[in-house]
């Protein structure tokens, strides 16, 4: 799995940080910081949840990668 974040779309809600703190963090202004672009398989479920619930639809996943 490869994770791609779009900082333009990010609205700083922080849902991803609450759901998958090992993969996502926030800058001081709330914008997403990707900690791990290729998360281990045990984190995939949380990453999928984070992508799905992101209010800005700013997280894209490439499941093939």
């Amino acid at each position, binding site marked *: 799995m490869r994770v791609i974040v779009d900082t333009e779309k990010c609205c700083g*809600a922080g849902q991803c940080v609450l759901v998958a703190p090992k993969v996502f963090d926030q800058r001081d202004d709330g914008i997403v910081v990707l900690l791990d672009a290729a998360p281990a398989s045990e984190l995939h479920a949380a990453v999928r949840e984070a992508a799905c619930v992101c209010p800005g639809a700013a997280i894209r996943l490439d499941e093939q990668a």
Partner: protein
Amino acid sequence: MSTESSEQVLDYPFRAPGPLEPAEEWAKLRAGCPVAHIRLPSGDRAVLLTRYADVRQLLADPRFSHQLAQEGAARIATNESGTVFENEAAASLVDGHQRWRRLLNKSLIAKRVSAMQPRIEAMTEQLIDDMTRQGSPADLLGAVGFPLPVWVICELLGMPGVDRDKLAYWSNTMLSVSHYTQAEIDAAQAEFARYFMAHIAAKRAEPGDDLLSELILAVDEGQHLTERELMMIGQGVLVAGHETTSNMIGKMMAMLLADRARWEQLVADPSLVRVAVEEVLRFDANAGFGLPRFLSEDVEVGGQTLPRGTTVICSMAAANRDDQAYERADAMDLRRSPNPHLTFGAGPHSCVGQALARTELQTVLSVLLRRLPTLELAVPAGSLARREGLLVGGLEGVPVRW
């Protein structure tokens, strides 16, 4: 407004059959009339969206704000000073572009809110101590739900605990559509403004370890925030963060206790709390008015073109029950995940306080599960009374025993 047609115009908001139940109109409108014509309490006309895809699309569209204080926009109520949506502070809070909102966002980012969790937990414990000392039965909303968000806001803004009750009254009044007279609303706004200006001056003289002091010292675009901008923050945080969260704590507990199996499921497995809170947020049918959007240009939504100048009301609660978006949308599933509900809006204007609200809800639920596993409603769920006259849906009380 020039939305003339032979179509039926529905009076909005709708009346639901019970305090925790959805209005019957929702399912009908989602199925047959996704762009419905409605009449607001002011008599002005607007359009109502109820489908998940439509509500999400419009809320996430960065072109439109919910600022109704502009020429041609529908008025929600007839009060002169209007509602939270015509209130500059609260309106710009959701607008995202002002530098003070940017600074506030920074202070409320998820990881900072997470750092506040132990304090929120301690405050929750204290409120539950007070409630249990008085003995069973008690009103959980009055004892915990109503005070906790004010305590949190007081702490956030560095206000003395003794001012909590005053703040609660002001925020309650400022958010009213028809509960208070215009004179009461004006007086509350003036008193709060006076109080908060004095508070800013005190913090300026002697900064503390709180969000307001931090914002006073913050520099953005080479400048400090003005008195007026700080005032906007104070008012915005109070009106947007108090009543909404209080009501949601009350409704969360009512929904979870209305069916004992839900409560018992959580007592047996408290690790479900995070996911359960999301489902409670999705399932809330007594969610209030919805979010307005004023169309500054034509937009296509739900297969129709809505003309520039239309006021649109997005019903997130109706959208959250859309079976095109959710399997078994009308069932509460405390394990439902992922759960991309629209309760906090979507896109760049989504709720700036959502991490804080989530943390408060999760904390209250966790502490209650641990402290009072035998908790139950002291009245039948159907007899809980709705709060009237507020934009944000809520209950009058949540009587419980343990």
